């Protein structure tokens, strides 16, 4: 099995050649991928915001942003700058400490979860063994931040929005985790790298979506609910709650919520592509391709090509899903809170349990196709 490009190895080798110790080289390496991922997450958000504006405009037969850069491509930057220079207002009788910590607690777990998103064999920050479980654990911290900001705003709409957000996020986490569990059962590993590798044995036919169609739909619905996207954006339902827990926020603190929401959307789309759509896998396997052009798989050129194809594929799949999410947002009506909780507890939870059981029995019956 080829190991692909190992940037860390080459970096530490290079630094060690400059006469530094191994540990120091490692210490120098650690912040680099983090910074890279942080930057790429923010750029991903900018792209998504632009897409959202353009697609919503198309759905409503408008033109959308037009003057900021070609096709309005700089509009998200302008939005960000506007939020940056706005006055930071803390309501007079709000609890200023909790009011400030709330948005941070919402944003940090989402960014931390990027730790496990693989763009290639070695193109991820850390191949931790508990992989996807880490994401589930981290995303359970978010409700605390939401409750905190809802409570500290000293506003009934904020409190209601915060409570709704926490209730929604708790109820949809369970079917989400069960859908992930079915995948984990099939690939015998929690690590995202292993999950993708197990899907890339026979091109796109071995993607998990064919073996887990129900799980895919459950996961996607739950991911949308966790991101508070429109069919499920009850925490900030404008007609009822002004803007939910964000009502009292302005300036950069509001921007943190905004960022967290979009980073979470991109992250969810990336994880769907990792779990169900073969991650960095190209529909045609790289081995076959390299034999076609007559170069060995270890050739640096082939390796670089494979790496970039991997990154492009992951992002392409993720953004197809983001497109779907945006289209859903601008074309579907909002569900009511009782419908939302009914859907979560009475429909998705039993279905995902049945899905888990069926997967387990299929795994016993056909160990070849369902990962023995």
């Amino acid at each position, binding site marked *: 099995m080829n190991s692909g490009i190992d940037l860390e190895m080459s970096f530490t080798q290079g630094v060690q050649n400059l006469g530094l110790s191994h540990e*120091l080289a490692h210490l120098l390496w650690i912040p680099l991928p983090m910074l890279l991922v942080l930057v790429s997450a923010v750029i991903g958000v900018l792209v998504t915001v632009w897409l959202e504006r353009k697609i919503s405009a198309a759905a409503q037969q408008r033109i959308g942003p037009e003057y900021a850069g070609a096709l309005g491509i700089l509009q998200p930057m302008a939005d960000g700058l506007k939020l940056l220079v706005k006055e930071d207002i803390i309501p007079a009788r709000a609890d200023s400490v909790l009011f400030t910590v709330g948005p941070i607690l919402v944003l940090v777990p989402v960014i931390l979860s990027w730790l496990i998103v693989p763009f290639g064999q070695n193109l991820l920050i850390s191949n931790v063994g508990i992989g996807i*479980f880490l994401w589930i654990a981290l995303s359970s911290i978010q409700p605390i931040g939401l409750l905190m900001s809802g409570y500290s705003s000293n506003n009934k709409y904020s409190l209601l929005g915060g409570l709704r957000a926490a209730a929604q996020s708790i109820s949809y986490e369970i079917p989400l985790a069960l859908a992930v569990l079915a995948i984990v059962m099939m690939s015998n590993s929690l690590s995202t790298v292993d999950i993708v590798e197990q899907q890339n044995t026979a091109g796109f036919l071995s993607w998990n979506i064919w073996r887990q169609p129900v799980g895919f739909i459950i996961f996607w619905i739950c991911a949308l609910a966790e991101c508070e996207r429109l069919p499920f954006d009850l925490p900030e339902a404008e007609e009822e709650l002004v803007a939910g827990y964000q009502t009292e926020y302005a300036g950069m603190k509001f921007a943190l919520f905004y960022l967290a929401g979009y980073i979470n959307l991109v992250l969810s789309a990336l994880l769907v592509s990792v779990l169900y759509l073969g991650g960095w896998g190209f529909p045609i396997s790289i081995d076959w391709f390299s034999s076609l052009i007559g170069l060995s798989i270890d050739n640096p050129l082939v390796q670089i090509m494979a790496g970039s194809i991997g990154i492009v594929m992951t992002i392409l799949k993720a953004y197809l899903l983001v497109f779907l999410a945006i289209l859903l947002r601008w074309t579907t009506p909002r569900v009511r809170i009782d419908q939302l909780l009914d859907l979560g507890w009475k429909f998705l939870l039993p279905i995902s349990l049945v899905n888990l059981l069926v997967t387990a029995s299929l795994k016993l019956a056909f160990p070849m196709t369902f990962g023995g």
Partner: protein
Amino acid sequence: MNIAYSTELICFLILSAVIISGSLAVVLLENIVYSAFLLGGVFMAVAGLYLLLNASFVAAAQILVYVGAVNVLILFAIMLVNKKEKLKPIEGLRTRKLISGGVCGGLLILLLRVSIITQWNLPGPSSIGEEATERIGEHLFTDYLLPFELASILLLMAMIGAIVLARRDVSIPRDDINNNNNKKSLSDKKIPLLSENSLK
């Protein structure tokens, strides 16, 4: 002393400081909402300690269960019933505080004594790192199967109990409810849209 060791030491010191000061604040703060949020912080710091011990699965489970479920439920309970009322002054509060403080201090001294007297074999068993997840699963389904099942039955009982408590339906005939509503909303009071004075 190499870099890895010193980072570990610094992390350990910070985490323990957070845990100790945080749990003291949970107990001593007057504002119950602060206590609940700080409890979440303490749970996360404990998860950090597990991470330092190379037990990443246990750390993630700690966050998922304690922060994501237990603490959020506590917060829910506080926020749904957060009535700001003046409590009656309790008689002899000072002596009560002294007694409970004494009991806690005694417990602390006992624990300290145990931890000093015990012969810890150092260094402890080496951690198995990433394999831990599989090992935990193995143990749960072989020699710890009975406690595991008993725990799940306990949780099921608690769940059924909660449902029974929450669904105490008072059986009122349906027609009755409708009639009452109609009377209240339509018949009795007629509130004029404009007051008498403004018409004149």
